[in-house]
């Protein structure tokens, strides 16, 4: 056990691991690139849905139940399914990652919108704001802390799951896991897993910190 840890430490800190076209540096960037693209696409789909449901109050049932649906979704199964349908490309990976991210964003966006004080929305209308002004000048800014939480959760989930890109022979940190498994190289498998975990936790802390900084003047109830 101790030896394993020493080997792992050596693997993670070896300079040759970090450079080169299949070094950790490149894999990390690939991993981030997959994750970022998937999250952006998911946001582009989920935000309008969440905002619309929140603003109109219609379809709340969908927004609330989407998250449990999201948790039940078998990601690898989805990759295989889309892979079979579309052939070898990144598409199935992105489809799976986006499908994973959408529910968290929709649910949190809706929750943020639903938490906006009715009196405040009423006052906004009463001062003469049109519906889009109420949405963009009042509801959206007030829901923003929760919307950002949704985006952060989605990104973390996507980062943790983007290892599946390697499963269909693409890059990212998953490479180490799947290559390690194929080569029965436990240190490499562990190294890949640790890198994914550290990346996810680091991003989470970074974004949570940014959120706190951004909304520091908010009343405790809305922050």
């Amino acid at each position, binding site marked *: 056990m101790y030896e394993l840890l020493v080997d792992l430490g050596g693997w993670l800190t070896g300079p040759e691991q970090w450079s080169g076209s299949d070094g950790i540096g490149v894999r990390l960037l690939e991993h981030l690139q997959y994750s970022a693209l998937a999250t952006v696409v998911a946001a582009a789909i989920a935000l309008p849905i969440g905002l619309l449901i929140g603003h109109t109050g219609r379809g709340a049932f969908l927004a609330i139940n989407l998250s449990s649906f999201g948790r039940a979704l078998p990601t690898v199964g989805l990759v295989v399914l889309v892979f079979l349908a579309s052939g070898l490309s990144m598409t199935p990976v992105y489809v799976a990652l986006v499908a994973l991210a959408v529910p968290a964003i929709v649910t949190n966006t809706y929750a943020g919108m639903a938490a906006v*004080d009715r009196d*405040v929305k009423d*006052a*906004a*209308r009463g001062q*003469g704001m049109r519906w889009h002004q109420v949405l963009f000048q009042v509801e959206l*800014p007030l829901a923003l802390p929760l919307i950002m939480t949704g985006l952060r959760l989605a990104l973390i989930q996507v980062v943790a799951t983007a290892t599946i890109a390697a499963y269909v022979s693409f890059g990212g940190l998953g490479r180490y896991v799947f290559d390690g498994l194929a080569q029965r190289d436990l240190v490499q498998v562990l190294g890949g897993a640790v890198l994914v975990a550290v990346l996810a936790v680091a991003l989470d802390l970074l974004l949570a910190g940014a959120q706190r900084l951004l909304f520091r003047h*908010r009343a405790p109830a809305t922050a």
Partner: protein
Amino acid sequence: MIQFQAVHKQFPNGTTAVHDLSLDLPEGGVTVLVGSSGCGKTTTLRMINRMVEPTSGTIRVAGKDVTEQDAAELRRSIGYVIQQAGLFPHRTVLDNIATVPLLLGWGRRKARARAAELLDTVGLTADAGKRYPHQLSGGQQQRVGVARALAADPPVLLMDEPFGAVDPVVRTQLQDELLRLQQELGKTIVFVTHDIDEAVRLGDRIAVFRTGGHLVQCAPPEELLARPADAFVADFLGAERGLKLLSLTGIAALPQGAAPDGGRWELLRDPAGKPLAWRDTDTDTETPVRPLKGTDSLLSALNESVASPTGLIARVDEDGVLTGVTDRDTIHDHANRLHVTASRDTLAADDADTLAADDADAPAAAVAVEAVEAVEATKGGGPA
């Protein structure tokens, strides 16, 4: 200025909130809509700025049917203050106040300059403008709510229980300031409250509503107190109706005489002529005196005359300098006459209702006499 013509509002769930309302609110002055909770005051108010659409009937503001105007534009032209203020928590106080000017496209600089001006108008410091609403007290938030409604200088102001959520001391303060502001601005204000005392304090006219959205009576407070249209209104006005009427009348018209000279009681004054205390020359003791101005009410005069060892109240001018004294009997006489005149005025103004008037007349006068006697009784046998 604001006209309701056979306005009816039934909500989709079948609740009739406003029943066949016809009401004319003249330009300038405060009309208070009063009644117990759920009697349709808020709905009535919100139909004026189209936050609620009437089921039938017409509402006109400045002669124009509100339903023929763009709702958002209409609302920008009407100030709206709600309970709990409804301020935008993510915007500074200054930006909250600048809301309507910004919607009207004044530009950020001009809107902020106007907002800064209004901070002062509603009695807030410039420093408060930089804060966020949750950093202010409830009373201060209400002030911001009023400032926000006034920002684009609308001729009409709608206020829905704006002072309902603040403590009584602050409420009185805010009411005073609203009256002061209104003297300066002369807006047409529609004010909703369930508090009859607030209605009497603020209203130039009071419209009393009954559950089911029925308007029962709309009259100036003096008339309402002297001659409630029916038992419901009388009941709503409460047992102290007579005293409330006294609280509405100033004492400027009360005759005054010279302060007593050389008797047992001496009125002490400071060098500027401001009354300080009654001195009993027999026992060499002093009783502090609270002098009254012409704008003070008959009720406070009655109260002072009872508290005064001489039965005299000290009258002062605007600067607090003694102008004379008035005795208890004169105050009582005036109080009695007030109730009788208030009733008679209404009789003349409305002969169609003579029968009802006769009914209401008696209790009003009775209440007044009772009130005077009650105050007298509490006083007991002091020196005459």
